[in-house]
């Protein structure tokens, strides 16, 4: 789509674009190029000497068992959070769409976690699940479960999955609610008159109609679990015990900032950039094809 009426000016469009382009160049493009360049360098921890090593950093990270395990953890973590968020948000949105009374109260309470900082969410969940002082931890200990996310790798993973899901349900909920409200009432009524019970109406009409939203949310949840959960991991498990809750972004941080392995961290950044590009293109091709959700 193009505007018919446009202005002619040699300078103004460049002036108006300049701030965004300059900030992007300085803080986005240049660092991204630098990451690509650094990913081919080997630098000692003090930055005193550098050497061009071609693909050695890439080879090294794929021989690093911690990196391979962080790929695996990222997948488990992302898929679990996505599944939990999609299912529970759909249930909540479906129920809200059904009732008449108190909609706004339920909706307001459900969207609150979206506004909570990931780091604060992490602190709250860390507190509740802390073996010595947490309420939930006490309940589990009383139930005979030897709960300890500081020592047990599975417990730590469960903790970050729950905390991350908790923060993301609101987001899924709002999109599902919008998408359910967009379904024409007449369609559901016609199916009801034809004798379809509510389960059939749900599986045969509602599910297909909301599938574009589901695909969109699937992508957005992946991006969320990949990039926005740093604060949660940092405040609950710090990637541990061992590397059991270190996802790919957390690994970039640990290798780059904590271990000062700049080349390795840069190589990981480049791999993540390729991944985001892929996801972004997929997302946009999809959105351009169909825009009615």
């Amino acid at each position, binding site marked *: 789509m193009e*505007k018919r009426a446009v202005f002619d000016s040699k300078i103004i469009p460049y002036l108006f674009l300049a701030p965004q382009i300059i900030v992007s160049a300085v803080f986005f493009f240049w660092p991204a190029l630098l990451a690509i360049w650094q990913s081919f360098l080997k630098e000692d921890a003090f930055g005193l000497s550098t050497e061009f090593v071609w693909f050695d950093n890439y080879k090294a990270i794929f021989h690093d068992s911690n990196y391979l395990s962080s790929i695996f953890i990222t997948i488990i973590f992302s898929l679990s959070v996505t599944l939990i968020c999609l299912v529970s948000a759909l249930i909540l949105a479906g129920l809200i769409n059904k009732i008449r009374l108190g909609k706004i109260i339920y909706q307001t309470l459900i969207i609150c976690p979206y*506004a909570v900082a990931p780091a604060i969410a992490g602190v709250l969940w860390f*507190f*509740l699940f802390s073996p010595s002082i947490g309420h939930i931890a006490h309940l589990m200990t009383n139930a005979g479960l030897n709960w300890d996310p500081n020592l047990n790798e599975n417990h730590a993973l469960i903790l970050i999955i729950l905390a991350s899901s908790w923060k993301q349900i609101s987001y899924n909920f709002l999109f599902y609610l919008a998408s359910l409200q967009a379904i024409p009432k007449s369609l559901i009524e016609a199916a009801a008159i034809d004798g379809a019970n509510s389960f059939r109406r749900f599986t045969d009409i509602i599910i297909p109609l909301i599938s574009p939203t589901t695909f969109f949310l699937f992508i957005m949840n992946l991006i969320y679990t990949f990039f926005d959960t740093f604060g949660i991991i940092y405040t609950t498990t710090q990637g541990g015990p061992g590397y059991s809750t270190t996802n790919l972004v957390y690994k970039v*941080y640990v290798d780059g900032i904590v271990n000062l392995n700049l080349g390795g961290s840069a190589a990981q950044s480049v791999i993540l950039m390729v991944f985001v590009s892929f996801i972004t293109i997929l997302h946009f091709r999809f959105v351009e094809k169909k825009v009615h959700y």
Partner: protein
Amino acid sequence: MDKNFKLSNAIAHLILIIGVIIITFPMYFGFVASTQSVEAILHGNSGILPGNYFVENYLEIFSPNKNILPGISIWHLLFNSLFVTLLITFGKTAISIISAYAIVYFKFPFRNTAFALIFLTLMLPVEVRIVPTFQMASNLNLLDSYQGLSVPLIASATATFLFRQFFMSIPDELCEAARIDGAGPVRFFWDTILPLSKTSIAALFVILFIYGWNQYLWPLLITTKQSMSTIIIAVTQMITSDGKTPWHLVMGVAFIAMIPPVLVVILMQKWFVKGLIDSEK
């Protein structure tokens, strides 16, 4: 039929109530802990109802004479968070709206290149370029400064896309009429586009406020001085590994740090939903 409807309605409310309880309990228990004595919490006796230390704990947190972390009071932290959040919110809105205007209302060489460049930033979240972005900020002497905390976060494509999409929906006749009246591009922007964009700006404000307030990784990297810390960073720094964490105060500060963004969402719910759904389209 009516009886069935009533029953299923009651079940719907029941499930919703359970869902809402699960969703709100971490925040509720955070608040409960902030009204207890630290001994009660450490002994696991904090119970499920607020305790008697509400006034005492919050007076301690808000007292201007007491610092919640060495050398910094909660007022200073709240000021830092609010100031940086507003810089991010206004900066992002301002640079996005003018760049979208340039792309939609002008024909010029490199227009598509500019748009493609902005699109590219979508693929480069700060989390994937941590080290070089930090080095860049450090080279520019931006460590421990308000500019350093905000400027690297103010360029992003989503706000530009939102405004572009909105401008596309403005009828061409409006622009033609303005041109016949002799208005130039800057005048048209100021007198027509900006007032028309109020709704989009309000919706975006909510999303960006939450984004800015809740930042963690970037402020963690770029601040070394306690005096430049944000409240979110401070909460996590109050937790120590030596078992001496003042949990009653940590939960109090965490609760306070949650209030501004939660309040913005609740009070501006309509705009929040609009902003979220528009900007992701």
